[in-house]
Each structure stands twice: as C-alpha cells, then as structure tokens.
C-alpha cells in the first residue's frame, strides 16, 4: 500500500492530510493552536512537495473569503482557524454554506474570549452549529489526517456541495504526538478525484453567483441547502466505508459506539476525550458494570437515528461536553436529548459540563460521571446538569 509511518502532532497530521488532498489554494491566518498547520503547509509549498497557491491573508474573514473566491472558479480550497478567528469569519461561514462552496476547514477547538484563553474547549464550533457547515470532531492524529481527505470527498459530492469543518481539540490533540500511517499520494489520488463542479464561474458558461433572493425564493434555497446537509449523512457513511476498504481504517460513519450493545449506562462524548473515556469504561467493565461510550463524530448532520438506535437498551445516558449555552444547558446535550425524546422510549439523560478553558478532564472525573449516572439509574434524584470539577463552593446552586 506504500504507507509510511510518522511520529507527528495532530496539527502536523492534519497538514499531511491536506497536502495529500492537493488543494489548489490555501489561505490562512495564524492563530494559536492552529499555527502549526499553516506553518507545515507553507514549508511543504516551499519545498515543492505541495503545489498550492498560498495566500498570506490579513485576517480570518479574508481567509475564508479568499477560499470562497477560489472555490467559485472551481479550485479546491483549504483554510484553518480557531476560536476568535472562527468567530471573526462567522459571516463568511454562512456565506460559504449558503453559496454551496465545498471548502474544507480545520478548526482547532479553543475557548472563546472572554476571558481570554488559548486552551481547548469546544465552545467555538458548537456555538456555530447553525451556520450550515458539516462538522466532524476527530479523536486522534490518525483520524485528523484521514478526515482531511474524507472531508473533501464528502464536501465535493454533487449531492452535498457543503463545506466541512474538521475539529481538533486545541493542544490536547493539536499538539500531542502520535504514530500515524501516511497513505501514499497515489492511493489518495485514486480515492479523491480532482474537484469538478458546474457551480462555478466559467468563461464558457458565465454565471452570476451569490445573488440576492426575494421572500418569494429564499426559503426554497434554504430548504435545498438543508436537504443537502441532511443527505450528507449517507455520503459520510459511504465515504467512510470506501476509505476503510481502501486504507484499512474505518471510523463508523456519523458515530462510533464502544461497548454500547448491552450497556445500561452510556456516556456520549465528542473529540479527543473519547480515548480516556474508553479506558475508564474498560476499567468499569472489569468491575462488572455495563457501561459504554458513544462518540459522536458528526454534529452536523446530526446522527439522530444512530443515537436512538445505539441507546435503545440503555437506562441512562450522560452527555460529556466542553461547552455551555449560557442560561440553559450544553448544546451537545440539547441535540442528544432531542433525539432521545423522539425515540419514544423514556431514557434519563444528564449533562456534564467539563473542560472549559482547557481544564483537564481526568479518569477520575469520568469515573465520577459514570457513578453519577449509575446513581441516577438507581433512582437517586440528580441535577440534570452538572459542572465537573468546578473548584469552588457554589452553595449547591444551579450547576
């Protein structure tokens, strides 16, 4: 198969994946903890390993704007950002998805100011679930590399034509080192054909793009966009299976259930914390507890059906997330709970808010969550939302 093994960080693995996907245009503005991605890509361009136009843009808004311009003429485009930058380009996120530009963007999940924090949590991308982008949360460096390639295959699919955001947890994934298998360029070329679209500015068939619509048409365009994003669910699974066949690595499509088949207690996770959760789940299983871990990979399109299926036999579900929608609950929980309610079967569900601003989530914290869920399953009254490891006394209020 021509694979090489390399010892790289999450960021570096992502950069390698991007290189293999052969983008025509890379536009990016540096922001911690994404910087290594664009640095490595710049080095690859300098060395001649990657033939891309590398645009040193002057802001994140311009980064995505330039990527859209490139996509509009039929070029494959890539950009990367994090937190403040992601929000700075927020207008462009909606623009890109509404414009049906199949751009792939790496986002290093980082806590949003204020207070300022360079450390990881998932508030940045989760606050933008409605912007129309497909969103995947990867767990490790290998998945980062593989998803960069898969993301283009998904985005550029003619029935999808929707941009994809690949999320890596800031620092814990972007900056930690792992051994990854790097597929050969030939193998990736065979898997990912060149980008072709009719949705572009073309001298043979000139177009007027990114136009306005009146109230008489707008909903139709939005419905079309919604349908494409929903259709992406099938495409995601197909691409995952094809990738598995070709490269030997499959990720389960929209979700990845671990020991959930007979689990009574399931913890739903997002991103790199999943690995730690699996270790804890194994320990608890050895103690005879029937626990499982349900990793959500794609938050959009939301895997409602898969979540309902996998949690069918469970007594209680906990959602662990690095996010909070102030004044209410965690956004992942809101989404998961909605699915559980639609299942028709009453399953108790609880929300664990953890890891904000880079606070560590330890094995003990996860054990605490499983114990909390077990007690709830046994009839102990529990607060449905629990802030983990809050280091102060809150007089038992809220949390």
């Amino acid at each position, binding site marked *: 198969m021509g694979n090489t093994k390399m010892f790289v960080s999450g960021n570096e693995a992502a950069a390698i994946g991007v290189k293999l996907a052969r983008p*025509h*245009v890379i*536009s990016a503005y540096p922001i911690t903890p994404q910087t290594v991605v664009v640095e490595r890509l710049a080095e690859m361009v300098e060395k001649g390993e990657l*033939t*891309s*136009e590398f*645009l*040193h*843009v*002057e*802001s994140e*808004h*311009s*980064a995505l*704007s*330039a*990527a*859209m*311009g*490139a*996509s*509009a*003429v*039929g*070029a494959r*485009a890539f950009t990367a950002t994090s937190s403040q930058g992601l929000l700075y380009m927020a*207008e*462009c996120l909606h*623009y890109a998805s509404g414009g049906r530009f199949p751009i792939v963007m790496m986002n290093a999940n980082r806590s949003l100011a204020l207070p300022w924090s360079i450390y990881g949590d998932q508030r940045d991308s989760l606050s933008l679930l409605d912007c129309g982008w497909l969103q995947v949360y990867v767990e490790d460096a290998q998945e980062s590399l593989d998803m960069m390639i898969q993301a283009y295959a998904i985005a550029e699919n003619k029935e999808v034509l929707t941009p994809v955001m690949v999320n890596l947890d800031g620092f814990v994934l972007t900056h930690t080192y792992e051994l990854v298998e790097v597929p050969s360029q030939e193998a990736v070329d065979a898997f990912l054909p060149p980008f072709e679209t009719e949705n572009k*500015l*073309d*001298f043979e068939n*000139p*177009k*007027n*793009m*990114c*136009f*306005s*619509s*009146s109230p008489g*048409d707008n909903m139709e365009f939005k419905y079309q966009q919604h349908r494409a994003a929903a259709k992406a669910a099938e495409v995601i699974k197909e691409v995952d299976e094809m990738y598995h066949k070709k490269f030997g690595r499959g990720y389960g499509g929209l979700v990845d259930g671990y020991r959930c088949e007979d689990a009574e207690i399931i913890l739903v996770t997002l991103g790199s914390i999943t690995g730690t959760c699996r270790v804890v789940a194994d320990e608890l299983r050895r103690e005879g507890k029937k626990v499982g871990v349900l990793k959500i990979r794609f938050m959009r399109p939301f895997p409602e059906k898969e979540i309902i299926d996998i949690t069918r036999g469970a007594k209680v579900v906990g959602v662990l997330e690095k996010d909070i929608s102030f004044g209410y609950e965690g956004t992942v929980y809101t989404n998961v709970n909605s699915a559980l309610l639609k299942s028709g079967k009453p399953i108790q569900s609880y929300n664990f808010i953890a890891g904000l601003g880079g606070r560590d989530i330890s094995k003990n914290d996860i054990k605490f969550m499983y114990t909390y869920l077990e007690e709830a399953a046994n009839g102990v009254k529990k607060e449905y939302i629990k802030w983990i490891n809050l280091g102060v006394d809150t007089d038992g209020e809220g949390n």
Partner: protein
Amino acid sequence: MEKEIKRINAHNITDKEFFYGHKGCAGCGGSLAVRLALKVLGERTYTVIPAGCMSAVGFVYPQLCFSTNAMISTFAGTASMLSGIAAGAKALGIKDFHAVGIAGDGGTADIGIQALSGAIDRNDQIIYICYDNEAYMNTGIQKSGLTPFGARTTTTPAGENIHGSITQKKNMFEIVAAHGISYAATASIGYVQDFMNKLAKAKEVKGTSYIHVYAPCPTGWGTPEDITVELAKEVVDTGLWYLAEYEYGRFKLNKNPKEFSSVENFLRKQGRFRHLDEKDIAYIIESRDKKWEYIRENWEVA
C-alpha cells in the same frame, strides 16, 4: 518599459453590454462606472461586487444583470474574494483574464479597507475599482469615510448646531499609493475618456491596480437625474476632485486647471450642501487650495 496601450474610445469599444437591465436609480453615476469598466475589461473577466448599490440593483434573482461572470462578496470581503479568484484561476492554469472588484466608498474605505490593504500587500493580480458616491447610499444615505466635509447625510443631519459631516474625505488614493501599489488612479465619470484610458492601463498592470472613480448619486445628493455626468465633470473643474495617477512610485497629476470653476455654484446645485453658510464654503475652498498647493509642489504635473 511603457507598453503601447491601445486607446479605447466610443467607436472601437465593444458593442456588448455586460451590465444591463439593472434596477439602479435613473441617472445613477455608479452604474455608468460599472458599465464602462466592464466594457473596457471585456468578456474574460471575473467581477466581484460587495453588498452595496451595484450588487443590490444587479443581482436579485431571477433578474441577473451581468452577462459575464460576476458574484457578490461579503461587504468587507471584496478584495479578499478577488485574491482568492486570482489565486484559484492561476492554480487551475486559467490565463488571459481579469479579476475586477467594483466596490462603493463604504465598501472600500471603511469596512473593505483591511482586505484591500492585504491584497495590495500581496500584489495580487487584481483590479480594484472604487465608485465613490460619497456615502452609504444603498442603505439610505449614511455618512461614510468618503463623505466630504459639510455633506448632509441621514447620520450627519444638517441643522442649527452641526452643518452636516465634520470630517474630510479619507484620502484613499494616497493610502493605496502609500502601500507602494503597482498602479493607482483617480478618475471621474465626467471625464469618461480619461476613465477608460486608466482602465485600459490597469488591464496591463502586473500586480494590483486601483482606480477611484467619482460617481455622483442623484438620490443621495439631491440633484436632478440628468446632470449626473455634468456634476462629475464639474467636481474636477472646481478642484474638489483631481485626476491623477500613481505609477512607478511617483504621483502624476493628469489635469491641472488654470482656473478653478466656482465651488459655491457646484455645491449649491446639490441638496446635500444647500445648508452650507459662507464660513463652511470658505473652509472648503481653503482646504482645496491647501491640497492643490501641495500637489503642484510635489507631484509631476502633466
């Protein structure tokens, strides 16, 4: 180094119209600027127009008024979208085309200045045209960075206490020149041959070029719709606007009036200036004189 640039005029210009059927106000200066720019640049052109009058009047589905490739960018993103187009087309091996952005004064001097600055810094192969009607017209005539001193706008209303806008126009021409841009020029739709000459020059520039074209707005200025072109000529004749170029690192004045025509006559034709008193007008004239003293001393004068 100076390539012989073919002069485009009314007779040899293409008969095709690339901007047609739009919903701009009757007598709109901006639409004339867009129409002529596209005629000079030709069919192999990618046009980017941000939120503003020209996109609002030209792109409401299903009335699509551009017969060549055109797209609307975000308000702040004209120049960056253009950079992306130029880079994408280059990467795809597409040759012999122009990437042009046509933005208003607000989309250039205020919200769009960051992206413009970046594009010039990168020397991206793009042409950037600012059609200057001196306010945010599309949203209903609000003050922009290019609204001149004394102009009434809805956010700088003229009354007893304040006589309209109290700031001078941002000097976009000199701002882009300060970047060391490959080519920049000021123009006016009142001097169309000069405007077309400058467009023809911009087509040949290696790197970024910028043309700032004065384009009166009858609706926003309170003027009859049939004198738009005459106003655009008169502003140059009064010296309140100048026709100049920045090329090879040097400023060159294209037209040096021996005598300026009356500033007061020019201003009083416009509803947005009718409230000005003698002191205001004297101040405007004084500012003009100061500027021209500087120009005549420091720039190459044609």
